[in-house]
């Protein structure tokens, strides 16, 4: 009987193999340990790749020149070295620029959200001739790159004297033609479609006019959509450097724009007679980058729930 197993032994062995298989690979409806581990390892690896630039930035921003040059110091600086931040603060002129960034970001974002709400409500609740064509045109504006309309708008704003002024951002936002306006109109459209019409009809029977229904019933119910639109609009306006540099010229600046000019400004400020301590290095540049994204990061971590759930709840994926 050497090497051969009785039927009973075979059965037992098979059962054991199946059990461990189930444990490792899982059964229907329940994953095994192996798969689970694999999923976690994959997620953690990808997560690290995502965070790697951030970690790198923060780590380098605290490195002194000696740390930067020393091959022994890899990730953790030998000391907390704040000089980089002091210099970056000077180069970016952090506080005034921060105020300006908020100014040219929050106002257009508010305007864009409000107007997108009104337009989305119009499309969702009323029937009028050409509605479908117009809605298709709304969506079509999303795929028109800003570069095509940029030159005529530039000429147009130039003639009206709106350049170097927040109005160059505000006017398109108020007229529903701001950054990615189509997306916001779509969000509100989907959102208002989901609200049962009977609620508004009840109010209308009680004698409320259209404006009243909109302000007292539709808007309070659309709070999630409003928050999402405002946040996305805020972030997109904040990150927009191309149109900002074109329309604002030297009159207004934002943190990303200052970051773009970082090296030039640094050399102007610290054009030291000696190279070495006063010349620009990775540490200073990374400190500048960290400073310029810090406000957005703070906003994100305070509001990430809305950002992440937003796409879900706003019904952008359609019902």
């Amino acid at each position, binding site marked *: 009987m050497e090497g051969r197993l009785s039927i009973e032994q075979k059965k037992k062995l098979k059962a054991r193999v199946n059990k461990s298989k189930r444990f490792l690979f899982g059964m229907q409806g329940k994953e095994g340990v192996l798969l689970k581990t694999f999923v976690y390892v994959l997620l953690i690896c990808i997560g690290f790749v995502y965070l790697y*630039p951030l970690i790198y930035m923060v780590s380098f921003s605290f490195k002194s020149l000696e740390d930067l040059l020393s091959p022994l110091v890899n990730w953790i600086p030998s000391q907390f070295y704040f000089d980089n931040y002091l210099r970056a603060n000077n180069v970016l002129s952090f506080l005034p620029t921060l105020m300006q960034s908020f100014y040219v970001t929050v106002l257009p974002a508010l305007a864009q959200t409000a107007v997108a709400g009104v337009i989305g409500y119009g499309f969702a609740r009323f*029937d009028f001739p050409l509605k479908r064509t117009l809605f298709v045109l709304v969506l079509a504006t999303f*795929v028109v790159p800003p570069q095509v*309309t940029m*030159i005529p708008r530039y000429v147009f704003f130039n003639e009206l004297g709106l350049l170097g002024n927040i109005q160059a951002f505000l006017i398109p936002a108020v007229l529903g033609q701001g950054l990615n306006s189509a997306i916001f109109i779509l969000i509100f459209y989907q959102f208002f479609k989901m609200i049962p019409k009977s609620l508004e009809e009840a109010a209308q029977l009680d004698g409320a006019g259209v404006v009243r229904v909109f302000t007292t019933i539709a808007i309070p119910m659309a709070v999630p959509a409003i928050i999402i639109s405002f946040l996305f609009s805020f972030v997109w306006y904040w990150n927009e450097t191309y149109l900002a540099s074109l329309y604002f010229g030297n009159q207004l600046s934002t943190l990303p724009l200052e970051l773009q000019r970082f090296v030039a400004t640094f050399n102007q400020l610290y054009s030291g007679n000696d190279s070495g301590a006063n010349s620009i290095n990775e540490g200073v540049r990374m400190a500048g980058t960290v400073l310029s994204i810090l406000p957005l990061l703070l906003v994100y971590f305070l509001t990430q729930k809305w950002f992440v759930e937003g796409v879900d709840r706003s019904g952008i*994926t359609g019902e």
Partner: protein
Amino acid sequence: MKLTMKKKNQLIGYAFISPWIIGFVLLTAFPLLYSLFLSFQDVRVTTNGIQTDFVGLNNYEIAFGVDTLFTQYLLTFIQELVLSVPIIIVFSLIIALLLNQQIRFKGFFRTIFFLPVIIASGPVINELMEQGVTSIPSIEQYALFQAIMTSTDSFVNTFLIYLMNNLIVILWFSGVQILIFLAALQKIDKQVYEAAKIDGASNWECFWKVTLPSLFPMVVVNTIYTIVMFSIFALNPVIDHIQSNMFDISTGLGYASALSWIYFLIIALALTVSVGLMTVRGSKKYA
């Protein structure tokens, strides 16, 4: 004059969308036509305003014949678009599938994967690229990578090198797409899976026969979104080139308009080709 209820409602509807209509005519439709008009002109900005001179297709001829930089940028752009968009879509789908499982710290992972959307501004990414943090460090030295490089032909090589050098940027472009896929995944009816399982479908079969078909509309949406975001991103050299020509006295607004129209047409072409292909194939497969 008394309006009927229907007429009244129509007027109110128009009133609600009137800001958009005005804006569309003034700031999108008219500029679009005007820039098309400018692209056939030689434009000089004088103290009396703008003076134009009809030059026919001259600007377009310069763009393709003389301006070697532009054609080169354009070709790189198309190449990158063709490579990146499928990678971004597939990658965001994979992450969405991973996140859709029952795992701990789901919120934490979602927060991380969405982070890049927040800091995706040109200058920030530019700083990171200059520091070389957007590529995987020293991957070229790994034996496995070397082995792949020597054993495959040049096309796969370019693809791999591009992928390795731009991996983080590519990943960083997929935040919104991941969320869109995730939202769609959560809306798939669980009962469909149960029915498929009872019929003896494996997880693999479930993915191809249930998950993918129901995600199909979102694949189209994400493709459009990715192409648009990729093309209007500020780091794009084509866009830079257009702007530098805007303020160049020897070329000017007319030439820049021609460039932007060429660019626009290429993006429109990319959108129609990709969406067209997908819907034709998709409707056959998943109808």
